[in-house]
């Protein structure tokens, strides 16, 4: 029964952690939005549209972070058959797809006034759209089999194969010439963003990160509880048929 010891401990830990996570998420969003909308200057080139960055960049970071989480969990699931890893990968996938969609839509709304176009097929934008399709494929594949375990295994393999797209997205702006500008924060020589704009950006990044963990834990908990319910029902059904037969 040691297989169930881990989920049990996870559920207890989740219950203790969750109120703090939810509170911290709300505080971070309140502070982040205050700085993003009220307490930060317009950009010298881009004017007020720079405020889209405080949504776009954290969402794009989290889209990549969620994918790395899924890839790591999938590796754990495939190699060590850890019972929580599959659940984590499955729970993170819709969240990652949501972050990717936010990044794509907000980027498009930023690109129109500044670049002059909603969309171009440059290396960065194309590889990011591919990430969205990888997420959709991962969600669909996980549910495509009658046997849950087989679906999860197929999804885990897709997640690992698709992980190659992550460095491609990150370095697309350095390897090829693109319309999208290079990285502003994670670059050699330090961030190229004024502190007055870095504060709201990092606050929003923290808020997105906390939101991801809170939602991930909730979805994992829901899945573990349903799994427990299914097992209980299965056992009762078996006991019931055994009882009526004997």
């Amino acid at each position, binding site marked *: 029964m040691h297989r169930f010891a881990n989920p049990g401990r996870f559920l207890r830990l989740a219950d203790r952690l969750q109120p703090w996570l939810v509170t911290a998420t709300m505080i971070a969003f309140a502070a982040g939005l205050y700085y993003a*909308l*009220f307490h930060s200057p317009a950009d010298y080139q881009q*004017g007020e*549209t720079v*405020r889209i960055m405080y*949504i*776009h960049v954290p969402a794009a970071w989290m889209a990549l972070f969620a994918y790395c989480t899924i890839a790591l969990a999938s590796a754990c699931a495939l190699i060590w058959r850890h019972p929580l890893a599959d659940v984590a990968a499955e729970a993170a996938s819709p969240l990652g797809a949501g972050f990717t969609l936010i990044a794509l839509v907000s980027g498009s709304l930023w690109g129109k006034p500044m670049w002059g176009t909603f969309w171009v097929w440059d290396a960065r934008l194309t590889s990011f759209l591919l990430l969205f399709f990888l997420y959709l494929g991962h969600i669909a594949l996980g549910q495509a089999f009658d046997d*849950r375990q087989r679906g999860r295994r197929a999804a885990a393999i897709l997640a690992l194969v698709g992980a190659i797209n992550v460095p491609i997205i990150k370095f697309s702006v350095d390897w090829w010439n693109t319309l999208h500008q290079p990285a502003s924060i994670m670059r050699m020589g330090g961030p190229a963003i004024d502190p007055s704009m870095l504060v709201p950006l990092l606050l929003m990044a923290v808020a997105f990160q906390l939101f991801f963990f809170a939602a991930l834990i909730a979805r994992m908990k*829901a899945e573990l509880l*349903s799994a427990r319910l299914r097992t209980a029902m299965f056992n009762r059904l078996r006991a019931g048929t055994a009882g009526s037969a004997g």
Partner: protein
Amino acid sequence: MEGVSTFLAMGGYAAYVWPAYGVAAIILIAFAIDSWRRVRVAAADLRRMEASNTATKSGPAMRSRSAAPKPTQAATPATGSSDEFAGS
């Protein structure tokens, strides 16, 4: 009042800034509600199941299933989701 309308105008970029925040808000709030609802539904289902379990156990050990109303009631959803186990 003027401060509010200048703020809402976003330097003429209101049509881009606010939809960006709006889309993010809709998606994040939808995820928050959905995640919370999933936990509540799963926890409630499990509680109901466990409650009916203890009810069965507390009764006489070899009672006929049709005699007790509660287990029959709980067995109905069980048959519905049992096919999930058919493959595994």
